[in-house]
């Protein structure tokens, strides 16, 4: 006879706990190893190797690396690009999704299908045309080129996500407003926008981090040092300044810290967005 009570732990849960914590530590290990080596002096690295915890914490590499790659400039570029992209993309996606999800315009499935293309078409199939057009428009090597491109490209995902959220909007509320003679603009401003504000914030957070991490298009569009984003600068210019192993660890650490800090702050918001995007 089975007398297993749910609350009785037994041995299995501890085994699971132990294995999963081990797994989590293995997963965090690359960040940890970059961290301890970033603060190690090169001499100590040669003496004690990559696994040793530093005896003497050396902060000098950061200042050096920071000024050599002009990291402040890169941070400002990334923040500017990601912030503006988030704003543009949320604005455009919201309006389009409003027509699809609330307005239920005819042909909305086709419009959505059209935006889904953004998801399947690789950036490589757009990059050369964008590159040559931006040259003709004198937007080449100008961060506005990637602000415009990502602002528009991101509306694919944004429209998809917001229309599925808006299509679950309570019908009675909209009907009541329409019977009272509220115009679409009025409904947008007084009903839909206030209720959707949290979702728009989730979406903006996602756009921000996605844009921050973009690589191919900035790589092609922004050749000069002054215009580069953090991700791009880390990937293409670090080689010049990272002759020894500890400097490479420091470069990696500086490169991923902004994303990790952003993630830890907005962890809940981002997780909501990721799961919201997957299954409506």
């Amino acid at each position, binding site marked *: 006879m089975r007398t297993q009570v749910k609350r009785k732990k037994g041995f299995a849960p501890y085994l699971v706990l132990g294995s999963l914590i081990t797994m989590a530590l293995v997963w965090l290990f690359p960040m940890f190893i970059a961290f301890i080596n970033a603060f190690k002096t090169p001499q100590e690295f040669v003496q004690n190797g990559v696994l040793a915890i530093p005896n003497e914490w050396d902060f000098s590499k950061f200042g050096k690396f920071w000024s050599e790659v002009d990291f402040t400039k890169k941070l400002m570029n990334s923040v500017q690009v990601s912030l503006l992209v988030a704003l543009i993309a949320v604005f455009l996606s919201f309006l389009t999704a409003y027509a699809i999800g609330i307005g239920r315009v005819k042909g909305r499935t086709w*419009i959505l299908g059209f935006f889904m293309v953004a998801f399947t078409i690789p950036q490589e199939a757009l990059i050369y045309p964008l590159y040559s057009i931006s040259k003709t428009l004198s937007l080449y090597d100008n961060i506005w080129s990637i602000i415009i491109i990502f602002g528009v490209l991101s509306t694919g995902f944004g429209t998809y996500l917001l229309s599925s959220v808006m299509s679950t909007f309570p019908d009675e509320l909209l009907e009541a407003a329409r019977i009272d003679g509220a115009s679409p603009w009025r409904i947008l401003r007084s009903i839909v926008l206030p209720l959707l504000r949290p979702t728009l914030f989730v979406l903006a957070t996602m756009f921000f981090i996605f844009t921050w991490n973009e690589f191919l298009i900035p790589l092609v569009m922004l050749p000069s040092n002054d215009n580069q984003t953090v991700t791009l600068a880390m990937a293409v210019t670090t080689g010049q300044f990272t002759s020894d192993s500890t400097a*490479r660890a420091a470069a*990696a650490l500086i490169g991923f810290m902004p994303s990790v800090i952003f993630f830890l702050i907005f962890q809940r918001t981002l997780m909501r967005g990721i799961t919201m995007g997957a299954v409506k």
Partner: protein
Amino acid sequence: MTTKVQQTKQYYWYAVPGVVSFAALVGGAFLYNVYLSFNSWQGIGTPEWVGLENYQNLIQDRVFWVSFLHAFQFIFAMSIAPTAIGILIAALIYDFIARYFGNAISTFLRISLYVPQIIALPIVGMLWAWMLSPNIGVVNTILREIGLGSLALNWLGEAGTAMFALSIMMIWIQVGYTIVIFVSGMSRLDPYLDEAAQLDGATWFQRFRIVTIPQLYPEIAVVLLTTTVAALKVFGPVYVMTNGGPGDATQVPAYFSYFHFFSTTRVGYGAAIATVLALLLTALAIGLLRLQRKMGLMR
């Protein structure tokens, strides 16, 4: 007074900015790319129309086929393996950790496993290239410490191991995503099914296989779709870590087209590769969406 039909028409205006800018930028650029794929062009001067020549050359280009073969290998490392691992870990987190040890530990686990997802791929690539460096890298150091010095290979420098090393990294990157999706999927499952199976004496693993997995089909479909598309698009890590090498051991379509655009400046050829990739991805996405609908009906 406006009727309902008139009102519906008014809504079209809201779609105009989004649709027009998207059509101009994405649609325009893609059509231009397709046009370029029928041309021979060095990037300067006037493109010369050559019809299907680029595509004919592609079919005979061994590297083209190799690059697609690698892209499909990445489907295993970025899609299939992380989905399998993710669903198991998610079930363990949901059934054991959250139940017996509380939300704090389960959140800690999810965050730790998700961190690789949040870092830009080129930076992840840089970090791993450093960890994998043959002499001073941490991977080989550990292998030597534990007496497996014979396995301390030049991971990225040898054609035989480069794909394997990239694949391990991809699994490390991807499981966080699948776990987060599956854990959230599990919270919508019907607990009575699980309890009924438990009363019938089913073991945890039997319940996982027969009760949990089938209920998660919608999530599995979404995860397989998004990660497969991502696998075929891989560019950043290859650019930073191997440049497609050694030889063409890690060549992928995205890097291969970039290489022809900007290194050999055979723009038409690069455009043809990118076009093939785009069509393949679209066909694959449509196929997987159909499959998803079918699986949805089967439930």
